[in-house]
């Protein structure tokens, strides 16, 4: 088997006496969509936060491309090539699509205009934004200068995913990307997630939506009681079996897929 792109070993996080994650492992392989499912309180969001730098684990190691990393802030993880789309949709509604794509990493014009007058290279950023959006099949958004708040929930999600795909060089983490969306828009976002994977970026998808998970995931990591219960694939197990493992109604299979 190939080397995992992102690997977590024995991640533990305690809040006082409460153990949020209890020695959890995770492996993400190149070119795959790994879904992370689990009941509320199973520790999946804490695990993901540890991977995206939003939380510093008490114990455990994280490896990116085989090299150990220590993320202290989300910026560290981002600098290392891990982009996260948070559930709260980290977009600024009043700014336009291009501004949002480059928010926090704006590019300045070359030469004196950029260094002294700090002028932004708007035409370049817009062209880049257009390219990224169309690469992901979101080309029908004609107006890159349109305010994000005028977009639908799915379109906003598309902007957020496009941003992570544009700047994530190693891993894209998506936290409940389809949670607030209708059926049609949810399906489009799923397609977008596949497009991101097909461009070569492995994706970690956290979701409560079992049909969505079974539709797009290559492998499914089931988190239970702060640990990884097992890893299954949509082919090896049915949805109800996954839910049974997740809730503890069934014993997890001993061999991880």
């Amino acid at each position, binding site marked *: 088997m190939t080397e995992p792109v992102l690997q977590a070993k024995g991640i533990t996080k305690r809040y006082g006496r409460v153990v949020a994650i209890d020695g959890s492992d995770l492996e993400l392989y190149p070119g795959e969509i790994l879904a992370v499912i689990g009941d509320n309180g199973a520790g999946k969001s804490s695990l993901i936060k540890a991977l995206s730098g939003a939380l510093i684990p008490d114990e455990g190691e994280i490896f990116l491309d085989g090299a150990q990393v220590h993320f202290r802030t989300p910026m560290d993880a981002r600098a290392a090539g891990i982009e996260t789309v948070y559930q709260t949709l980290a977009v*600024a509604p009043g700014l336009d699509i291009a*501004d949002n794509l480059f928010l*926090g990493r*704006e590019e300045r014009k070359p030469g004196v205009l950029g260094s002294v*007058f700090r002028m932004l290279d708007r035409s370049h950023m817009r062209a880049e934004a257009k390219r990224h959006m169309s690469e992901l*099949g979101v080309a029908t958004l004609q107006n890159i200068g349109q305010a994000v708040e005028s977009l639908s929930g*799915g379109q906003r999600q*598309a902007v957020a995913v496009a941003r992570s795909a544009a700047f994530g060089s190693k891993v894209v983490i998506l936290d409940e990307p389809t949670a607030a969306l209708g059926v049609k828009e949810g399906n489009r976002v799923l*397609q*977008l997630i596949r497009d991101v994977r097909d461009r070569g970026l492995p994706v970690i998808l956290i979701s409560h939506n079992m049909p969505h998970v079974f539709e797009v995931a290559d492998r499914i990591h089931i988190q239970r009681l702060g640990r990884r219960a097992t890893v299954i694939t949509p082919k090896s197990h049915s949805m109800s079996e996954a839910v049974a493992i997740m809730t503890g109604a069934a014993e997890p299979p001993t061999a991880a897929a």
Partner: protein
Amino acid sequence: MATATADFDVRRHDSFGLRVQHALHANPVLGPLAVLIVAIIAFSIVNARFLTATNLSLVLQQVTVIATLALGQTLIILTAGIDLSAGAIAVFSSVLMAQFCTKAGMPGVIALVLGLACGTAMGAINGTLVTRIKLPPFIVTLGTLTIFFSLNSVVSNSETVRGSDMPGLMTWTGNSFPIGNFHLTYGSIIMLLLFAYFFYALSRTAWGKHVYATGDDVEAARLAGIRTGRVLFSVYTVAGLLYAIGGWILIGRLASASPNVGTEYNLDSITAVVLGGTSLFGGRGSVIGTLIGALIVGVFRNGLQLAGVEVVWQGFAIGLLVLIAVSIDQWIRKVKT
């Protein structure tokens, strides 16, 4: 359709109201601009003297100080904050500059620079309280408003310093040169240059984008990697500097530095910002709107006066305008596609 993730439906035939709503949403300056133009036309019909160059230059001189304060106020309101201490910082800075000249006998340039530094420091105090202690801007500036006005009385002994007792640089902002019958003061030129600069900074630099993003959704901005605390601090500090420049312009306008003026400047600056279409909820608006908003206040005050309306009713009219402006802002925010 199948592969496209984000399609746009072709806009249906919207009602007139919806189209106006969309137009205002896409371009929030249109509303205030329309109000300004209508007001100018109306007042010039009521009294022919209104549209003379002499009168218009008076209007511009009258709004210069408020416009400068409103510029700083705009930056803060764009971050979803509010600054009640704007006028207090301006007046206190002007008093300090005057005292540096008269009591300390400093040359004009040094007194000016020190006065501007003091105003900047006052803004920085607001910024520190908002970002470090994490107090709501309303409470912070309510407190500093009272403190600055109190210090103002202590430092000045509640005495006005006449312009003739200060170096010429202090009152230079009130000097003007004629363009035909139009008298343009240096203070107005400074004000217009500041507006031009901040228009550029807000729309063409990363700092500007960060100001909007922070006001729009502070959590989203933080997750996008913006140091929102720094952005907020910079905004309050820069606003302090702008207020102090406003204080300098005020000395020129009054030809004196008085501790007893400017109590109404705090709210007037907010009025100008709101009339200019900048949303009190943050993230939306522009300095061009604020300039128009300040001009609307000036045009209404001056025009109503020329129309023979009593002073007490001028306030009534302005207040009514503010309520209408805020209602329109709420309506625009409900825009749906």
